[in-house]
């Protein structure tokens, strides 16, 4: 190296100047682009940041949360839900003519964005399309009890069911499409035509979707920004006006400290839980599950990690749900009792309890799992934490390849979720009983609830079922996460929904900042 350095004479000043030319070019380009490139965001458009764009704007095929929420803005449904998650009239009022026969009468004022009147034929065409197995709609299962759909007149449509189902109106949450466009195979996924409060304008880029509010022409743009930090930076800079959820607590704290940003939270119904494999020799033992439940300090996690934006959970349904038992109490944090239970179950230094805990690779979920791992270690449960990409994690959970895992149920409205999750016949692929939980009393209560003649009768059984599940602990309930909405000061009128939908955009306005 020494020989090399002596062989190379130093470049003269001109040589250095020439070699710096590319840097100068780069700097000049940078300056010229920064000088002319930034336009202030147009105040005529309201911008809402999302984590990801909707997969499809066709409600017959949408399954992801973003698609469902945006489709609610574009299409109207026969039935909506009130604050207690009871079904209420949306596009139509209904009456039960007999246990297996429902009649829906449509409102007179519903028109599609192309100006045509929404009629009973559109309702029938939408549901018939979904029910046709050839179209492979993911929503067919929920509607499988429909035997036939009959158009009585322009405003009236009848549904005939295979068997009595008091929950039936709540199943009609599908956006209604125009029949003539269904027939012509219109590409609703990219060019939706609905009767909702918004109409489609353009999808100009893969990460930007533009809608127009029908009542006042207000433009709304959804912008996908996957990284939460960047989403917040865009909000701070005014490139977007609103963000909702999927923000780590430290970013929410940062936003709360800003004068130009308004942060609001509202109780949510998204249910976080720990699930167990009931066929596992350790996780299948009740004292072990109970010890885990007592060892987890939910309050501390909610306070210190979730920034207070959650409330302890008692079961799948939040306490305000019509079928929920509001008197059930969350499990206490009692590490001493957890240690006693483990000792009585035969675990100790000579026979330590070791569990494998699977979670997704989402950094925030991983952080929560690490804290739970630490809390379980304090009562003597050694936890091997394993995180996987979503597809692998979900595949393992469905196949029963786990001892313990954490997940979240999102957007639950109907109490028949209990059959889907806890009935012994609902082991995947038949349902979502991933832990292979089999309890005769649980099955009996689920079946009794389903055959109750009305909602009040169903609620009685579902409340008993919740108490049973809290005793048996196939899930350890963790918390219901709040919804967090942050907007630039001057953005007003947004109402946060308990299921996290974006319906509040129908009333949002920008006042002078």
């Amino acid at each position: 190296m020494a020989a090399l350095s002596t062989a190379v004479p130093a470049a003269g000043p001109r040589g250095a100047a020439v070699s710096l030319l590319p840097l100068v070019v780069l700097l000049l380009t940078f300056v010229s682009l920064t000088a002319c490139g930034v336009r202030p965001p147009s105040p005529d458009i309201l911008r809402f940041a999302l984590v990801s764009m909707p997969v499809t704007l066709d409600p017959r095929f949408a399954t992801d949360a973003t698609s469902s929420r945006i489709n609610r803005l574009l299409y109207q449904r026969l039935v909506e839900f009130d604050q207690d998650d009871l079904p209420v009239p949306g596009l139509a009022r209904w009456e039960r003519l007999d246990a297996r026969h429902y009649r829906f009468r449509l409102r007179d004022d519903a028109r599609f964005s192309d100006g045509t009147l929404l009629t009973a034929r559109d309702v029938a065409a939408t549901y018939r399309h979904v029910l046709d197995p050839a179209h492979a709609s993911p929503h067919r299962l929920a509607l499988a009890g429909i035997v036939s759909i009959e158009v009585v007149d322009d405003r009236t449509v009848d549904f005939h069911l295979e068997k009595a189902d008091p929950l039936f109106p709540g199943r009609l949450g599908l956006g209604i499409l125009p029949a003539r466009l269904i027939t012509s195979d219109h590409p609703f996924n990219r060019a939706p035509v609905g009767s909702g409060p918004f109409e489609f304008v353009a999808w100009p880029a893969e990460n930007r979707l533009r809608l127009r509010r029908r009542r006042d022409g207000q433009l709304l743009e959804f912008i996908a920004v996957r990284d939460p930090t960047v989403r917040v930076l865009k909000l701070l800079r005014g490139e977007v006006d609103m963000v909702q959820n999927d923000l780590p607590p430290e970013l929410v704290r940062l936003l709360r400290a800003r004068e130009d940003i308004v942060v609001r939270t509202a109780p949510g119904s998204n249910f976080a839980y720990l699930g167990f494999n009931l066929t596992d020799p350790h996780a299948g033992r009740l004292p072990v599950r109970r010890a885990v439940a007592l060892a987890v300090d939910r309050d501390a996690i909610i306070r210190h990690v979730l920034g207070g934006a959650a409330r302890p959970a008692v079961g799948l349904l939040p306490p305000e749900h019509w079928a929920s038992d509001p008197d059930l109490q969350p499990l206490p944090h009692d590490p001493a009792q957890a240690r006693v239970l483990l000792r009585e179950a035969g675990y100790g230094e000579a026979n330590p309890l070791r569990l494998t805990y699977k979670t997704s690779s989402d950094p925030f979920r991983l952080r929560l799992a690490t804290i739970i791992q630490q809390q379980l270690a304090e009562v003597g449960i050694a936890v091997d934490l394993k995180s996987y990409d979503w597809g692998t994690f979900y595949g393992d959970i469905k196949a029963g390849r786990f001892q313990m895992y954490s997940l979240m149920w999102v957007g639950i409205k109907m109490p028949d979720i209990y059959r889907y999750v806890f009935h012994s016949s609902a082991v995947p692929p038949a349902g979502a009983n991933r832990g292979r939980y089999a309890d005769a009393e649980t099955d009996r209560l689920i079946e009794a609830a389903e055959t109750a003649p009305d909602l009040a009768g169903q609620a009685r059984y579902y409340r008993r079922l919740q108490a049973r599940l809290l005793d048996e602990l196939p899930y350890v309930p963790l918390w219901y996460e709040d919804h967090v909405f942050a907007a630039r000061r001057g953005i007003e009128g947004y109402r946060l929904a308990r299921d996290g939908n974006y319906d509040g955009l129908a009333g949002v306005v920008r006042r002078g900042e």
Partner: protein
Amino acid sequence: MMRFLVSRLASALVVILGVSVLVFFLIHLVPGDPVEVMLGEGSQPADREALRRALGLDLPVHVQLGHYLQGLLQGDLGVSLHSRRPIGEILLERIPATLELALAGLVVAVLIALPLGIIAALRKDTPWDGGAMAFAMLGVSIPNFWMGPLLILVFSLWLGWLPVSGREGPASLVLPALTLGTAMAAILSRMIRATLLEVLNEDYIRTARAKGLSWGQVVRRHALRNAMLPVITLLGLQLGALLAGAVITEIVFSWPGIGQLVIESIQRRDYPVVQACVLLISLAYVLVNTLTDLCYAWLDPRIRLGQ
């Protein structure tokens, strides 16, 4: 030259066919069923079967492969399992964004690395050299997921000069290109410095000086040209990687390119989209490598292509 191009084209076809078949089998081995991802848990067996039939997933794997290859020959990449849109249409939306970012990143990298590498070599063991190499070390050490937000903080939030993210006009290209470019420039400048130092010590450089050429002429006409061969190879590889999608940078800057599409499609088990993306990426690599070989011949006429 013609013979070279024909032989490269033939080997490219073999590579692409091999990659297509390999990816087809690999993706079918990955845990996770697209039908279950689409229909959700608890779907009825009849619905799952109907969807499998509709998507052609009920056929034996070798028949599916046959259909896939047949479609490829006809220019039909298939339909996305999730959005049910033609994949060709999806890729056409993403390719311009990826090309734009890859080329801009490469230009930034070259514009930074060339002067730094040359100065570091010509002024070896001086503070210039130390400064340039410290920059290189810094660039290679800072990961893009940190560099991106840092640049956003400075240039978008504090100075307010550039948009935070998105793909809306030339200004929005600056920060992602800088993020990619600085990381790449770090590696490139070290490579330029090392090869230039080696070349400057060759006999023909001394001869050129003895002929009376100025030092600047020697560097430009002889040293740089010869030092560029390994640099071009590296550039080719880097460009290939960029065309495959700069995933982190695309995510940080919400850049709607191939990288984001690949990640989303893998997560959703959207087999046909993943296959199409991998095919595209292998095509990009083959194309860039061929161009790299052509550059060799231009830089060093002693290299005769096809011989």
